[in-house]
């Protein structure tokens, strides 16, 4: 039986505002435990929440970037449940009147095809504290006690729920990648999955191919990277396929992705379904964003990744795959555009940035001493024939490490490529004179042997000849 997977993603985004959502504690990552708390975010008796205006501005920005409608009237609701990392044992969240309704995110797949994934809603809530499990292996299942740090409690959290429009793990990964790039371009969050400022849960169900009704959905949690997400979804789809093929039912449950084991496992959940007893938050008045404010936020939207990719392709002539790679990396994108602004030819600049420069940046974790001027110079010098590709790469390594101008590195390392037709022409004459039998072979029709002759010329020039020019000069003489 052929099944179709139906996948929806629920993403949580920690906003990088200066303060928490409902109190004025500084919102910083990695502070010593319980040093970023106050009576409000510790849930002390008598405290009250007051919403952070900047957080609301940012969620409106996110909604606008995703083409959501900004609700003229929305409410905070209390989501009531007990857990040790919940200071109030309710989370201030949103229920049936979220700030952002609807929207979509357009994604591109590796084969170049595009897909529109619907967004159901984007709403505002607060993060919980963090628990650490103690007394065992550090994992939850053999712990004897737990300790709690409330620094994270109350950090503004935006929840973005997609429609179940994705059908493959690849689509889900593309969606998460695009969402992350979009959020990064908005400057609203650090969106670092490894730090928890972007988190993702997936809902997966299977149905017979062509069927309309949805199958039983399973929630998957604990995927800490885009790669994890893809692997987890692939595993889960296979697990559900095997289950259905064996005529067994899919249990509606939450499963935990185990990165090391490469599998999802059931979280031994209690039978009761969660009854959150939602009711409107009585301590916070309704939000009715002034249309002028929304317009201001809309005007502040930057060029979004999709628009940037289109501009790179349509205006700068890049290939779609190259544009995709560039836009996915803000640092690379910036380096590229600034190099183009310094008159570097775009296609060549893009190739350098996405290949050799990328390798250097990935290894170092940052841009080193490299500047857009370096990139622009490499492109210009190559196109002028002053250096070979190999030579340029070497010079680039040097510039990355020390910041040395590219030309200086070329000269210092003796990488300058001779293109002077006079000097090379003389060498060409020598080569032809020393290899009369090869010359004869060429004239007899074996054009391939010109490679050997080019090699000989390169040797004479101690590698510093421009191979293209060398070949041209040889060919001229051979044919002449």
């Amino acid at each position: 039986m052929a099944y179709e997977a139906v996948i929806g993603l629920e993403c949580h985004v920690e906003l990088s505002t200066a303060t928490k959502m409902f109190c004025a504690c500084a919102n910083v990552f990695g502070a010593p435990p319980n040093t970023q708390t106050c009576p409000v975010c510790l849930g002390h008796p008598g405290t009250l929440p007051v919403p952070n205006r900047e957080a609301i501005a940012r969620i409106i920005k996110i909604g606008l970037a995703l083409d959501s409608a900004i609700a003229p009237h929305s409410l905070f609701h209390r989501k009531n449940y007990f857990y040790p990392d919940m200071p109030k044992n309710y989370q201030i969240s949103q229920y049936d009147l979220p700030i952002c309704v609807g929207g979509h995110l357009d994604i591109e797949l590796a084969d170049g095809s595009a897909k529109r994934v619907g967004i159901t809603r984007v709403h505002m809530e607060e993060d919980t504290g963090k628990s650490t499990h103690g007394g065992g292996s550090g994992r939850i299942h053999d712990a004897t006690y737990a300790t709690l740090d409330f620094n994270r409690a109350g950090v503004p959290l935006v929840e973005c729920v997609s429609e179940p429009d994705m059908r493959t793990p690849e689509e889900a990964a593309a969606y998460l990648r695009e969402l992350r790039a979009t959020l990064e371009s908005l400057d609203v969050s650090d969106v670092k999955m490894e730090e928890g400022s972007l988190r993702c849960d997936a809902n997966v169900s299977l149905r017979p191919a062509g069927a309309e009704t949805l199958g039983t959905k399973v929630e998957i949690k604990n995927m800490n990277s885009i790669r994890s997400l893809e692997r987890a979804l692939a595993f889960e789809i296979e697990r559900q396929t095997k289950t259905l093929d064996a005529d067994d039912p899919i249990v509606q449950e939450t499963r935990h992705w185990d990165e090391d084991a490469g599998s999802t496992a059931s979280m031994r959940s209690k039978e009761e379904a969660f009854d959150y007893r939602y009711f409107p938050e009585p301590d916070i008045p309704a939000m009715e964003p002034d249309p002028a404010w929304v317009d201001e936020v809309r005007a502040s939207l930057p060029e979004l990744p999709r628009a940037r990719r289109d501009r790179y392709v349509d205006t700068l002539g890049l290939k779609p795959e190259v544009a995709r790679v560039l836009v996915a990396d803000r640092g690379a994108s910036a380096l590229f555009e600034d190099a183009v602004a310094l008159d570097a030819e775009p296609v060549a600049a893009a190739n350098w940035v996405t290949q050799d420069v990328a390798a250097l940046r990935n290894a170092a974790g940052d841009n080193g001493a490299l500047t857009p001027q370096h990139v622009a110079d490499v492109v210009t010098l190559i196109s002028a024939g002053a250096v070979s590709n190999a030579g340029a790469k070497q010079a680039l390594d040097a510039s990355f490490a020390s910041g040395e101008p590219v030309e200086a590195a070329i000269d210092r390392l003796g990488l300058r490529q001779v293109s002077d037709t006079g000097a090379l022409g003389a060498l060409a004459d020598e080569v032809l004179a020393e290899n009369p039998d090869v010359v004869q072979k060429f004239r007899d029709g074996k054009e391939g042997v010109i490679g050997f002759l080019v090699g000989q010329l390169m040797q004479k020039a101690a590698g510093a000849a421009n191979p293209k020019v060398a070949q041209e000069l040889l060919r001229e003489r051979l044919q002449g």
Partner: protein
Amino acid sequence: MSEALCDLTGAELSARLGAGEASASEVLASSHARIDAVEDRVGAFLTRTDQLASERAEELDVYLSTGAPQSPVAGIPVALKDVFTTNGVRTTCGSRILETYVPPYDATAWARLAGAGAVLVGKTNCDEFAMGSSNENSAYAPVHNPWALDRVPGGSSGGSAAAVAAGEAVWALGTDTGGSVRQPASLCGVVGLKPTYGRISRYGLIAFASSLDTVGTFTRTVRDAASMLQVLAGHDPRDATSLDVAVPSYTDGLDGGVAGLRVGVVTDAFGEGVAPGVATSVRAAIDRLAGRGAEIGEVALPHAGYALSAYYLIAPSECSSNLARYDGVRYGYRAPGEHADSIEMMFATRGQGFGPEVKRRIMLGTYALSAGYYEAYYGQAQKVRTLVIRDYEAAFERFDILVSPTSPTTAFRIGEKADDPMAMYLNDIFTIPANLAGVPAISIPSGLDDDGLPVGVQLTAPALDEPTLFRAAHALESELALALRPPLVLGAG
């Protein structure tokens, strides 16, 4: 016989302090002496703050001796219901679950009074988490009405009412969610004010029912209530429900009188369940208002009958959520011994730490909000609330002030209603509608019944019209000229 300093009004004390005829330390000493004399019989306090108070009074005396500007609040001994957080001073809410809790911050209402020079004599006893109408739900001990020690002071702010009635404090703060300031004021023969919802910040008022909780005051005169409100009222950025509207003068215009004031007597206010002594006393007070020129008429609040039902859905629902934070994790009581896991620890902590009335309301609220019941209960109750608001709006088109008894009865005996929750809830039948609508209301003594127990008359005004409320109440108070003092304190130190 000269009156003890602790029996003077705030206005009188302020004058004496300003004239140098008494010092803040002397005033405090008088309050302390009264507490020492009667507290073992009244039980108004859970925590006395003698040392802090003495230090504060000394500081004030230094300040006052410089002739610097003096607030009407400076040097006044004040008691706080133990639901207001006081930085560094234990705050229990009358519950075992917070028996050792020491807040790290001050409630805004207290901070304003303290900043103006009020002296804290102690934290008063109350029904646990402000749930009750008799102070019998305190986990510690009941409070005894200074007028008759075998009777309740009312609740939930019973300790604050009794403290002011007995002269243990000159002023006190309480909270009024369904009548918890007005009803004990009525039973204890003092003035109890519930201002407009949002007029005074709730930051630091430990929450019972968020959309109903209102900071209220206990004083022995209407003028003192106006002085207190003048300092307490105003916007607080830490409370998103606090009103951002200008605070008018509450003391100017107090003597404006009631000539031509349109006063509406609430129909059904004298029906079944209202004690004859209460009805007589309140009717007489209304006649005195008429005598001063008020135009008396009748007004119906058609949905008031449903207000009690709506209240007993809204308040428990909000409380079930507000009290979820008491779980033994970050502060307060934690059930001793080994627990299988944290959730088991929470079950045990809450089961042991909360008293029966609190559990009852948490259960009721949890049920009313649970899946499938929200629309029928909480949702519907909030609609009834809208209708109650409209009732008041219609009433205030024809009248400036509404009047009724505050409580259907005078103080009942301790233990008399304790086993019957429904009977207890009916004590709030006249006070609850004003909480649902958020409008201001005040209870002042109208006299004593044949058993010598105080009766209270309640005046209600439109939202934010405390000036008219005070003017009417002050006129009635001066007309009645009661000067009530419980026998307990006559001749007491």
